[in-house]
Structures are given as C-alpha cells and as structure tokens.
C-alpha cells in the first residue's frame, strides 16, 4: 500500500515536472514574441510587443504563470486607462464581476487554442477518442498475432519454424512506422503496383471506419509493436518449455 502510494506520488511529481518543462519551453521569451505577433500583427515594434505582453499577462514571472495555468494561483487581471478590466478568467461570456479568482487545469479550464479557435478540452477529447479507436483495433490485431507468433516460435527452440518466425519479428521491429507505412501504401494502394485494395489515407475513417480505410493504418502500427511482443512471448515460452 505504501509502495503504491509512493509510486503514485512519484507519478504526480513526474507529471508536474514534465508539464513545467513543456510550459517553460513554450513560454520562452522568443516564443511569447511570436505569440504577440501572431495575435496582434506581424509588424509590431518591440514596444508594442512589450505592451501587448503586459496587457495579456505574459510579463509576469514564469513560475506565477505556471501556477495560474495549473489553477493554484489567482489569474492575472489588467486594468487599462479607461478602467476596463481584463484578465485570465475574464472573457466575453464571463464579466469581471462574476469571474472566479482561479481558473486553470485544476478548475477544468484548459484554455482556448488560438490556432484552432476551439476549446483545448474539446480538441483533446476529440483526438483522444479517435486515437483510442485506432489503438483498440491495433491491440485487437497486434496482441493475438504476436502471441501466436511468439508461442509457435518458442515451442521448439532452434527449429526452422523458430528461426523464420524470429527473423520475421526482428524485421518487424526494424521497420519504423514511417517506413512500413510507405511500403504498405506503395504495395496496396498505389496506381504503380495496381493492387489498390485499400485507401492510402485514413481521413474518411474519422466519420466511419471501414475495412478499406482503416486496414493500412492499423497494420502499420501493429507491425512495429508486434515483433517486440512476439520476442518477449518467445523468451517466456522457451523458458517454460525447457523447465523440468
């Protein structure tokens, strides 16, 4: 129990440290300048950039901004010459009087992407769901095939079957996704070879998964992982087979 709690603590600590590293790398001075020029206009002078950063809460120290993003420190507010209050937690829908003091990841406010013009939570949720579907099918294909391969290879160590299956699994771990993807598309989806069994792009799989548009992506990812699992299975299998 203590072990579990400690592991859990280390996990949270790692997560926080990782988030902080990414946060500070993306929030370095030149990056902020890029954000200012992207949001304002590309020809802003240095003074304009500086004042934009102050107005949008980017002039605070990094640690404060990280705490705000996490939601443990109150969000920044800025009052301009006319007395209009803007702030991290203040938006068109949430006027200054009703705005909560803290809004960050912990409060469930993950911010809005300036590129997609969409809520970050929505962006993540959508892609997580799509990735999840892909991974589900990958697992469904990869694990049984790898277990069968590893099991057959480990039954009789050193036999012809073992040699050939082991070589296949080594070959599959030696082929990264961007290589096997290219080869699979060239063979099964290109006009040059002419098989054209599957589609070379999975864009349409976002709306509906079909055998035609989902086979190649699933096969590409499954291949790379399969060899590794098969080798692990083979190792445990030979151990069991040689046990007295």
């Amino acid at each position, binding site marked *: 129990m203590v072990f579990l709690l400690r592991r859990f603590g*280390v996990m949270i*600590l*790692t997560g926080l*440290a*990782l988030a902080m*590293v*990414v946060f500070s*790398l*993306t929030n*370095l*001075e*030149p*990056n902020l*300048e*890029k954000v200012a020029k992207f949001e304002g206009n590309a020809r802003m002078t240095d003074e304009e950039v500086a004042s934009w950063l102050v107005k949008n809460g980017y002039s605070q120290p990094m640690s404060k901004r990280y705490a705000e993003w996490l939601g443990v420190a109150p969000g920044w507010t800025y009052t301009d010459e006319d007395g209009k209050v803007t702030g991290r937690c203040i938006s068109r829908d949430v006027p200054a009087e009703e705005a909560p003091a803290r809004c960050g990841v912990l409060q469930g406010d993950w911010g809005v992407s300036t590129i997609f013009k969409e809520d970050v939570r929505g962006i993540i949720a959508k892609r997580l769901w799509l990735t999840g579907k892909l991974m589900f099918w990958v697992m469904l294909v990869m694990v049984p095939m790898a277990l069968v391969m590893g099991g057959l290879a480990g039954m009789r160590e050193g036999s012809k079957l073992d*040699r050939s299956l*082991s*070589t296949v699994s*080594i*070959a599959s*771990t*030696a*082929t*990264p996704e*961007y*290589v096997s993807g*290219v*080869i699979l*598309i*060239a063979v099964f*989806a*290109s*006009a*040059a*070879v002419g098989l054209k069994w599957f589609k*070379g792009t999975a864009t349409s799989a976002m709306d509906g998964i079909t055998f035609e548009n989902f086979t190649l992506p699933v096969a590409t990812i499954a291949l790379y992982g399969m060899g590794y699992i098969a080798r692990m299975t083979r190792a445990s299998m030979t151990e069991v087979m040689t046990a007295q």
Partner: protein
Amino acid sequence: MEPLSWTAIIGLIIAQLIPVWIGMLVVFTLSVLFKRSLGLFGKPFDSTIGMIGFALVLFWVFTGMFADMIITHDPLAQVSGMKNKLPGTPLPDGYEGYAYYLLGGDNLARDVFSRMVAGSTIVMQIAPLATLFAFMVGITLGLPAAYYGGKLDTLLSFLANLILAFPVILLFYLLVTPEIVQTGLPTYMAAVLFIFPIIFFVVLWNARFFTQPGKRAAYLGVTLVIGIWIYLGVAWNADPLGIISVPSNILIVFVSVVFVNSPTVFRIVRGLGLDIKTRDYVAAAQTRGEGPWYTMLWEILPNARGPLIVDFCLRIGYTTILLGTLGFFGLGLAPESPDWGTTINDGRRLLSIYPHPAIAPALALMSLVLGLNLLADGLREESLKD
C-alpha cells in the same frame, strides 16, 4: 535512348557499388581468417543470422564511406525533364555525365539513387557517434547510481524517468524550433552532454594509474588536451585552431538524439551494475582496498560488456530510426538534405502515383536497422554460449 530494363538497372547499380564490394570482401576474408583471435568481434561469424546482419551493416558502412565515388549525380542537382521519372530513365540528350537516373527522379527532378547513397553518409556520421556519446553519459551516471545507491540513485533515476516519460516527438519539436535555438538551449545541452566523455576518460585513467604518477600524468594530459580541444570545437564552436566546427543544425540533431538515448543506457547500466556489484570479485576488489571508481570502471564495467555491446548495436539502429523520424517531420536537418527521413517525407506526397522516390530510402533505412538487429541477435546468441 531507351529506358533501362530492371535487369540492366540492377547490373548498373552493382557496378556502381564496386568499392563497397571490394571493401566487404576484404573485411570478410580477414575476419573469417582471424575470427578465433578476434574475441567477441569474431562471434557473429559463427551464426548465419549474425553473418547476414554483419554483411548488411558493413554494406551501409562502406556505402557511406565511399559515397562520393558511388553517386552518379550531385544529390542536390535538378535536371529539367526528369521530374518523377521512373527508374532507368535516360537523361535528356546533350546532358554531360552519367546517362541514366538509375532509380528514377524525385518530385524535384533529383536522382533518387544518389540521394539514397548520400543519405547513408549522414546516417553513418551521426548515428554511431551519437550512440557512443549516449553510452558515455549513461555509463558515467549509471555506474555511480548503481554502486552508491541511496539519494544519488533516487535523484538520477527520477531524472532519467522524467526524460523517458517525455514524448520524443514533442521534445524534438520543442528543441529545434528557431525560437528555442535562439535562446541557446541546445548549445547549453551540448555543453553539458559532451563533457561526459571527458569525465569518463579522466576518471578511467585516473583510477587505473593512480599508483603510477608518471603514467597517470601522461594519460590524463593527452586526454584533457584532445578532449577539451574537441569539446570547444563541437559544443561551443570555439575551436582555437579553427579545425573542428559542426554546423548548428547537425549539432541540434546530435544533441537531441544523445539526450533521448542516454536515459535508456543509464537504466541498462544501472541494472547491470546492481547485479554485478554483489559478485565476489567486486567484494575482493573492495577488500584489496581499491577505490570506488576503480571498482566501478575496471571491475564492474568490463564484466558488463557483453550485454552493453549487444545493446550498442541495437541502439545504433534505434538512433537511425530516430534520425529518420527527425527528417520525416522536417525537424533540424535542411529541407533539401538527402537524409533518408527527409527523402521519405518528400516522396510521401505523391506516394500513390509515383512510389519509387520514397521506396528507395525506406528500404535503405529498413535494411540498415535490420542488419544491426540481426547482428545484435547473433552477438547475443554467441555470447550466451560461453
């Protein structure tokens, strides 16, 4: 002129690769003749799989070395009229030089064969060296973590896990963006990572020749002078003699790859160290009164060499894959660079109509990594036998 048939293409490619065949023949003859006296290096020659792996690796090593003699065209030169042409297409009339694009032209009318060969040079320059550096970092930190344990181990393991938990692609994206390069972060990382080889060798000689001051001074002096000279040139681009300098984008790629690889090496070395330090010969060295660094570097490390060499082979393959990933995402290397990842990405766009520009580098990358994995497999099997 007529386009070449596939037989003719293969024949011409084999002819073009003559320096490679000669090199491989020499190495193989020598290795088979002297394999008994070569120790671990001779091991792969006892198994067919190891031999095939070794041949594949050797093929790419020599291709990388003799690339200038092998290429038929300048890998960056464009010849009008050769855009997306199929393998074996002759060049337009009146063109001086080699008369064919052996593996066709890519979408910018460059020679696919020459680009693939030139790409092997880039991989051969970066991958083994970056892996070696990652091993230096991993060994220098992993041995004390295993030997001393306690707080040091906890801290180093936490840091290693932190880097391992980082999504590699996100890390690469962050490291190579021009804004972050501007802040000098990659240079500082290079400054930290590249000092480990110097530390490693200094400690290594110091521990060995502690009782022989004359020899120790000589070894340390040579190591420090050469080490600091290379260090200044590579990490800070400040070589006082002006001989060594590394292009900044190559340095960034190099640093990212070393940075991502070293925590894994650290964990392997730490695991091996934890196992070996309980052995009797380590206890004997401690009773003899040897210092901790002598025990680590001259008692524990040599006895961990088997698994480490096997992992070294595998890790060069993994580094090659990482380099390809970087090129594929267009990170770090120049957009027209002939490295395999970039060329695969270039060819990807027209893949369903003209697959040949992407297939050549894809097969090249796959065969090199496969060779390294087979070699590692052969080494492992043979080193388990004794």
